[in-house]
């Protein structure tokens, strides 16, 4: 028998906590993008229509600007930003090309059902320089997706439509079950947007991309119901540490 002096005492394990899985995903993606040379930028969640829509070539008649899609506040004086793109507008207004910036954060849309929430998170990035083209955009998107889902991932680019990019694309990855899953949107920055930010579109061009963080987190963690992220259920949150 062991002596009383060297008796084994179980460890009183300190149960550490954890950051939210959405923060984990956001930080991971942002850090990878920063490692490519992008600068982290941030901006307000309460925005003017000018920065949230007008400067991004989203016309007044665009359905997204209607009350059923966008939260308006204080008698239509402001909106809750519907995307993180206004941060890029602010950056392009304040800096001269070359510009490489990313921003991540909360965005708001007037949705509330089993697959859409009134608040969710995005990461968007832009790169503006001379001679930036679609083939560079493709390479960047491959880098991002391979870093998240592995180098064997099958990727599909599809034409899409965003007022602030032209050409625009949505990017799908092929799941293990053989289904194409949409993971991000991207495109060449519409020259109108560059001109809105006083950037000479004859000299400079740019690329832009955006990811829904919840979408990536759901795919990576295997979460099937987006609403689980915001119930603050400890049984749920404790799994991500």
């Amino acid at each position, binding site marked *: 028998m062991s002596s009383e002096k060297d008796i084994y005492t179980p460890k*009183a394990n300190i149960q550490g906590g954890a950051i*939210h899985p959405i923060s984990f995903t956001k930080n991971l993606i942002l850090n990878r993008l920063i490692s490519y040379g992008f*600068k982290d930028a941030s901006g307000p969640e309460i925005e003017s229509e000018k920065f949230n829509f007008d400067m991004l070539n989203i016309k007044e008649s665009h*359905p997204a600007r209607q009350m059923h899609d966008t939260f308006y506040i204080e008698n239509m004086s402001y909106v809750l930003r519907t995307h993180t793109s206004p941060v890029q507008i602010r950056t392009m207004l304040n800096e001269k090309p070359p510009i*490489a910036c990313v921003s991540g954060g909360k965005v708001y849309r007037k949705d509330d059902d089993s697959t859409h929430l009134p608040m969710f998170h995005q990461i968007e990035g832009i790169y503006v320089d001379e001679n930036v083209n679609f083939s560079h955009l493709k390479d960047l998107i491959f880098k991002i997706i391979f870093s998240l889902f592995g180098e064997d991932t099958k990727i599909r680019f599809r034409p899409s439509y965003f007022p602030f990019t032209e*050409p625009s694309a949505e990017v799908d990855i092929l799941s293990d079950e053989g289904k194409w899953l949409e993971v991000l949107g991207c495109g060449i920055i519409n020259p109108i947007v560059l001109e809105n930010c006083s950037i000479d579109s004859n000299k400079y061009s740019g690329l832009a991309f955006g990811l829904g963080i919840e979408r990536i987190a759901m795919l990576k*963690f295997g979460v099937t119901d987006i609403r689980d992220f915001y119930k603050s259920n400890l049984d749920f949150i404790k799994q991500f540490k």
Partner: protein
Amino acid sequence: MKVPYSFFSKRIKELVDINELSEKFFQLGHEHTIENKIFDFELTPNRGDCLSLSGLLRDLKTFYNADINFEKNSKPVPALNIDFKNKAQNDCPHISFLKIEIEKSEEVKVYKDYMEKYFTSLDIKKINFFTDISNYISFESGQPTHCYDFSKLGSEITLERINTNNKFKTLLGDEIQLSGDNLLFSSDDTIVNLAGVMGGHGTKCDTRTHCALIECAYFKPESIIGKSLKYDLNSEAAHKFERSVNPMHQKDVLDRFIRIVSDHVKVKSVEMTSFNYDKYIETELEIDINKINKILGTNIDITKYEKILKNLGFKFKSNIVVPSWRNDVLSQNDLAEEVARTIGYDNINQSNFIVSGSNKCPKDQTKISIIESKIIDLLVDNGFYESISFPFNSASSQSAIKLDNPIDSNKPFMRESIKDSLTENLLFNERRQKDSIKFFELSDVYSKKTNAIEKFRKLGVIASGRIDDNYLSFNKKIDANYMQDIFSPYIKDFDEKIEDISRETLNTKTKSKILYFEINIDDINENIIKYESVLTKTENFIQYKKISEYPSIYRDLSFSIKDFNQIESLERLVLNYTNDILIDSFIFDYFHNKKNKEVKIGFRFRFQSNKTLTDTEVDNVINAIIEQCINIKNISIPGL
């Protein structure tokens, strides 16, 4: 928009199969699903021109020799003398009317094959002869038309923007209360049509209609947008006008209408007239293949470029002339997209993307972001979990920002504090039998100050119940001292910031104190920068296991050990035991009784399943654990 595969295969002879067509549509950017050989398209809002069979076929001409000719009336049609006043020419610059009269006695029960298949394949209900043709033509050409029973109309028709609060009964029989500015057709001062959205009940066609007036207009999208939603009307016409129809094909569509009518019944008379208030100006863009290659990073030659665009209906003159149905093509970047989707985005090569050295921005953490990251380390090390909550709440104040259109009318304000959100989260978990709850949330909150919006970066921290799930802390409850020990080195005047939230107004039976503090990030002092995290954090995505909504069952098991060499074996055996319903286990009690020369170890187990567990199911697991442990020398379970 739904289109049966057979409608495509009939007009594309070289088509191989449905999967090939599906791939081509994805390449063109026309997202869809397929069920029972019917394509269901979700088209992007800039491609209103593809909201029809002919529009989709037109796009497919880039790959196939698709037949897009639909037979139409080629005979001259006498002019219609109609008293039409367009007081909204800016909203409706092009409009045509067709008056068509058929033999009274004719009733068509089965349509010609091309139209009958539209109704049967897509399970669309037939309504009456003229309306059915109108619906079919909208599907075929993308152009909505509206059919009035000519005998029910007055002597004149007026189109104008009216600010009215009149009631209007739609052709579906719903009565809607008009409000604000509306684009309306009236006849003899009676509203007969909410323009571009839905016609009225009083002038609609029915099975007895033998003389109809067909209205075929181009409305500007901005004149129609939002109206169907405003009046909660499900209108396919509005969906198409909002995305723009071809401003130059109204007359052609009415000629097609005449042809379809005459395919089915004897036509007594037709008259037609067109009003064009605006000269349509074609969009012209410079022929600049270098620019296209510069945008795409490709090396396409001019011959290929020309072929691609011509197949899509573009004309090459001194400039590129954009077809009238492509209102989305306005720039070289738009042309580049046409080329890219024809080649296939997936077939464009990659070029190495690199933010060049001189441009590269080093990871430049601001002081605030370092402080935030360090305080998060401190919180996580001490067992706090991050919460993210929606910022809407009911708390009104002078400075609270009000939403004009909240999702929940009970929560019309933006929160000015995180406290309510975190309290709600704490109570939610208490109701789920959690007895140690520690949350934090970092968030921007906003307030109104005179005419400006102020932003604050805040940290809220809430805690209640046991300090931790281990034997040293199990019987200790979270109190102000516990919070002080952790946070006071980093937050100035912490004792003034910590508060004890009263449970009096909270719907809870739990008695534990609720400790809360909320600070601006600026209130954290710089000592935190030196803080070094003690826990190893995961850098991988952990596979989530679906959580159960059923309640947990807890069981405790205490062992008495005389042979101290066996403590570690027992600990390992019990804590490593796995079972599908055993969710968690830890040592909640450890006591060395020196007098009796024994150690007592208490384990707590939590069981949960995707159903309500029975005592027997839990007992079976506990018995299995006991069975494994009891064979260890000099171990006993008191009371067993």
